């Protein structure tokens, strides 16, 4: 079993935390993980993409071939479409609903939603409202992880443990909020 994910969003949105949680979860289940990240200049408000490969076998390549992503997981709608050439036939697209508008020519939102809807099995998640419900707008990325967890080959308990591991450093409240955000995403 190999599962390929393309993670995307805008620099500063927390794409790397999404990657960190999924990677941690996969490891805890004894899977191989390769995760390529973005650093440096591209992190400042620009389009970012990270790739993650989870497998029960040896993984050679850090990068994913076009047409080989099982999932595109995006923090916002425009970015979910940018890397769609990576999606395999029948692959899953999951995106946060709230657009991140920091460019003048950002397309009309309805147009974006209809493009996303035209991809079979795609999901648009109201990450913003669910995160607010969980206790912090900043937990949008955990809502997204929750939604993805419905499809990913990692158990719910493992994810919750991974969230605890990663966020313990930041205090109990943050752990609680992120867990709640995860569960809301999972149930959405």
């Amino acid at each position: 079993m190999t599962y390929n994910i393309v993670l995307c969003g805008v620099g500063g949105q927390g794409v790397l935390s999404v990657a960190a949680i999924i990677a941690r979860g996969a490891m805890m289940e004894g899977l191989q993980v390769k995760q390529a990240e973005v650093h440096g200049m591209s992190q400042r408000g620009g389009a970012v993409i990270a790739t993650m490969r989870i497998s029960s076998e040896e993984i050679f390549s850090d990068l994913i071939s076009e047409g080989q992503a099982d999932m595109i997981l995006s923090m916002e709608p425009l970015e979910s479409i940018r890397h769609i050439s990576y999606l395999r036939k029948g692959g899953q697209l999951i995106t946060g609903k709230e657009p991140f508008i920091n460019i003048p020519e950002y397309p009309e939102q309805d147009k974006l939603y209809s493009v996303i809807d035209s991809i079979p099995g795609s999901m648009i998640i109201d990450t913003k409202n669910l995160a607010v419900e969980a206790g912090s707008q900043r937990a949008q990325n955990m809502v997204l992880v929750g939604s993805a967890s419905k499809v990913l080959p990692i158990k719910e308990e493992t994810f919750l443990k991974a969230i605890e591991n990663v966020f313990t450093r930041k205090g109990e409240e943050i752990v609680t909020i992120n867990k709640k955000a995860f569960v809301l995403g999972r149930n959405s």
Partner: protein
Amino acid sequence: MSEMVLLGDEAVAQGAIDAGLSIAYGYPGTPSTEIVEYLQEWKRKEDESLIASWCSNEKTAYEAAVAVSMMGKRALVTMKHVGLNVAADAFMNSVGYTIHGGLVLAVADDPGMHSSQNEQDSRYYADFARTICLEPRNQQEAYEMTKDAFELSEKLHLPVLLKLTTRISHSRAVIKRGEVRPKNEFNPSKDRSHWTNLPFLSRQNYEDLWQQRPVLAEISEKSDYNPLILNGNNRDVAVITTGLAYNYYKEAERDLENKPSHLHISFYPMPEDKIRELAGSAKRVIVIEEGYPFVERFLKGILPQAVQVDGKLNDVIPHLGEITPDICRKAMGLEAFEKAEIPEIEMPGRPPQLCKGCPHTDSYKALNEVMGEYENPVVTSDIGCYTLGYFAPHNAIHSCLDMGAAVTMARGAAEAGAHPVVGVIGDSTFMHTGIQGLVDMLSAGNKVTLMILDNSITAMTGMQQTIVESSGIINVVKGCGVSPEHVRTIIPLPKHHEENVKIIREEVEYNGVSVIIAQRACIHVVKRKYAKG
């Protein structure tokens, strides 16, 4: 031993620690930065005696490390590929030395230019210097090769270059740690002649270096880092890979029915005999390498003409950018994978931009207002977050060449007749190689304004401490000889806009060198301080 999940950069750091590293120096540069950061964290948590410092630039870092080696201890130097241009003088000259404590230079290349201004391939520097280059293909190898690099360095008395790339540096994987070796004792080299580059000594040292070539060649030939797998049943094509191309090729190979003979090269100088053996087994050799056609060109020099060599030089592999799994598939004649149906939509680009509330935004606003009053203003810029001032809505800068060039190019533009000329440079960049340009400018007596955008941090690479604080920079500027009344400070905030405009206007009209220091911390530094209370 224990397992850890590490970035490639972190694996290098851990490898160095386990190899008995005493001191590391570097200058932050994506994608190499995390090596020193990891070591600093290690110092804080595990080993107080370890030294891991940022320096003002790559050359100073390298030179300090050479002295550590002279004292018999193991030293690591880190930088990005363009940083090696800055350190090249020191690096090239150090190869003639008889390295004492292990000296390893970790250089991170950035094919595809994810956050760099060019794609240069550091293997050429190792070759140019006539020393060993190791090129890991995954994070585990990054760990192990770092340890081996120190051993080789001490055994062969050479500095060893460890070549990384963005995908190695910034990918995470599980690392198995090996044995931990104790650090070297203080043990200064007594042999002055091997550490002094006087011509009569250098001639001897250079000859010794040349004599050593066969030794290196033999090690390369025997090295497990250059694995050769022959398949006598495929006489049509053979493959050579380097670096990450190995991984991408291995993915593609799974789909090949008759697997070609394959040589992977990650220890340089190149294993000539193995290359000949491989080429002797096939009519055609495909070279899949990241970076420049380094191996490919070498092949043309040693193989008979009858062997067809395919690679970057005849566009079987694209010349520019990163190697990808798709490129490998195509080169091996495999079909592309079927993709999901792609909807028609125009995709606007989304370039990186200054953070909301960034101090540079306010500096550029004020600067733009003044520059707007002139017909042909010139603003030369430098490397850092403020380079993003190129984009709308700022459109504030006209050039960016390399670290320090904001200052020297401002001088050149002024002497060519431009007015007003403003050079914008960051605080960290100013200390890197900006000061020297300022000294030039002062000696020439140019009519130029230098704006030091001082955000109290090296922000773009991820918030590394700068080596001199704001108060120190003012003194450095004054100490260089800028007349004190023309060393001005502004606070780039909207509420000071009018005042800042006035100061910039005054200084660009001053008939001499003026320096305006815009002092306001990067918002992330402020946030961090605030979070800590």
